């Protein structure tokens, strides 16, 4: 479904991700592990085509569509969705309005159907109390993560890229985020890549394969259970200078 082969990503002309190869078949959830500043977020932003991030080398395909010549708008339209680690504060933009807009682009239905869908998503992630607040206005860490997952549920992309859904949040929020992501897969998202440097969220959801990124390169990959065990027991340092597993 999503294929990245020997991908390099530049930010402002500087190569941050030097080599990354990831292949996620339909129906699978993969994990991308690595310490801070190893290039995980840059890789996700490069794939979605975030302004300033450019795939400089390698192959990036979504279900047979070459992503590289596409703008972010076109990549999102092709089916890439992203949940960011932090969401901006958008003055005057109520969360309800944003979710309704995203849902209406997917459903194209009546305003009543759209409103009901937004209510359903908000209930699922316990964010009803945030709907009439500005996006990002005073949200706690956990609320921000849940809102980001809510935008994915509203959008229902073919492939979801999820950046650090478990950093700086309480256990209950991690559990709800995990449930939300599982629900997203049930509702039609075909593949998912979750970035995590603690692996915390991995305890609450299924996954099949994991990759470790160090210094802008994927240096190790394998079945997720095995990779997680190795990382949790030995940390990342033993992989420095290592090769793909």
């Amino acid at each position, binding site marked *: 479904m999503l294929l990245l082969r020997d991908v390099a990503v530049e930010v402002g002309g500087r190569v941050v991700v030097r080599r990354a190869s990831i292949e996620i078949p339909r129906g699978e959830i993969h994990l991308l592990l690595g310490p801070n500043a190893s290039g995980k977020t840059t890789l996700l932003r490069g794939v*979605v085509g*975030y*302004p300033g991030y450019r795939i400089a080398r390698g192959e990036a395909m979504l279900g047979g569509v070459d992503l590289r010549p596409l703008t*972010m*708008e076109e990549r*999102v*339209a092709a089916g890439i*969705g*992203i949940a*960011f680690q932090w*969401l*901006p504060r*958008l*003055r*005057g*933009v*109520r969360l309800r*309005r*944003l979710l309704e*807009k*995203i849902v209406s*682009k*997917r459903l194209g239905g009546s305003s009543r159907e759209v409103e009901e869908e937004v209510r359903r998503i908000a209930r699922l992630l316990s964010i009803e109390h945030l709907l009439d607040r*500005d996006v990002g206005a005073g949200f706690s860490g956990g609320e921000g993560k849940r809102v980001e997952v809510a*935008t994915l549920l*509203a*959008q229902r992309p073919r492939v979801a890229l999820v950046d650090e859904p478990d950093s700086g949040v309480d256990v209950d929020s991690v559990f709800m985020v995990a449930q939300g992501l599982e629900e997203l897969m049930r509702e039609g998202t075909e593949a998912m890549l979750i970035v995590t440097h603690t692996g915390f969220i991995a305890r609450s959801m299924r996954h099949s394969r994991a990759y470790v990124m160090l210094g802008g390169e994927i240096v190790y990959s394998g079945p997720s259970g095995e990779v997680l065990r190795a990382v949790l027991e030995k940390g990342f340092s033993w992989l420095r200078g290592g090769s793909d597993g």
Partner: protein
Amino acid sequence: MGRRSYLEGVKERARRALSKPSPYGPDVDIARFAPASGDADLGDPRVVSRAAEVGVNLRGASRGFYYQVDSVVKMYRSLVPGLEIMRIDEAIEERWDEIEPYLWRAVAPDTDKYTALVALRGMGGYFIRVRRGVRVELPIQACFFLTGGAQLLHNIVVLEPGAEATVVTGCTAMRERPGLHVGITEVFVGEGARVVDIMVHSWGRAMHVRPRTGVVVEHGGSYASLYINMSRVETLQTMPRVRLVGEGSRAYTASIVLGLGSSVLDVGSLVELGGCGASAQNIGRAVARDSSSVVSRLAVVGAAPGTRGYVECSGLMLSPSASIEAVPALRALVEDSELFHEASIGRLRDEDIAYLVSKGLSRREAIAMLVRGFVEIDLGFLTPQVREGLRRTLDMLAERSL
């Protein structure tokens, strides 16, 4: 004072001010504009659609309304007991004793050449009075349509003690014809009365607009106003003056203006806290696109003990060739007056646009959503019907900013 001598005194003051420019905004050659014929019909689909843009439904049911084209009063009626709607000339003619305490009392006829012009050659305008203790549930609708030339009118709104009402005034014009609109509006809010005064303007690119508004609020009274300009205009200058003379009186004034093309806008308001414990919020949002120029002047004067005032002046630049000047002003004339202000001017942040595009919005939709967010203000004081109408108006304003 007798009618004839009072009106002659007004005219005499006006004559002396006929060449007196306004301290703000570009000076307009008022001699260029003659009153137009008023031959547009209220059933004309172009008129109906333009009126709808400014929040007035000419085909809908209203229990109190006033519609004028150019200098010709087309229709007016009140079906609500305790609500009177009349032509101002009719009120002067037939109810002199009742209108005299209000006529030219909140706006002086010699304020500048524009007020003088209305005092000398004004034609049309309404006299609306809500009787003591009467609550008018549905909004009172007024619409002024200009086909071109000069439209010089004078409105008076009186809320007797304990009365409540919402007045929605929409002003619009044929798009391309040159014109001058000067509207004098005097509002009197009696003891414990409440009024919501909404004015939406959508003019043409060759129009000069000079509204002149004065408001007096008595003990415990409340005045809330919202002014929106949502289209291109050649020049627009207005600076309503709200005097909170009564103890514990309150005001909320908000202006939302969109500068398009080469429009020159100078919009603001002045609130004077003259009664003990009076309070006011004075809010301005300016959006400037193309080569437009917008000045936003918001001032509060604390002139009595225990008063509080707040000014918030924000500008959003959507073009490198536009300009915005935010001029918040606070003036305290007594020790015990707390006054605050915030002012900011900026552009849309690229990362905010990128965030929304990543969620599936087009770049155009993302910008419209952020502009709409910028002009969002608290509309909680409005009835649901009026609130919904204004939301649509602000949606349209955001779309036009693109």
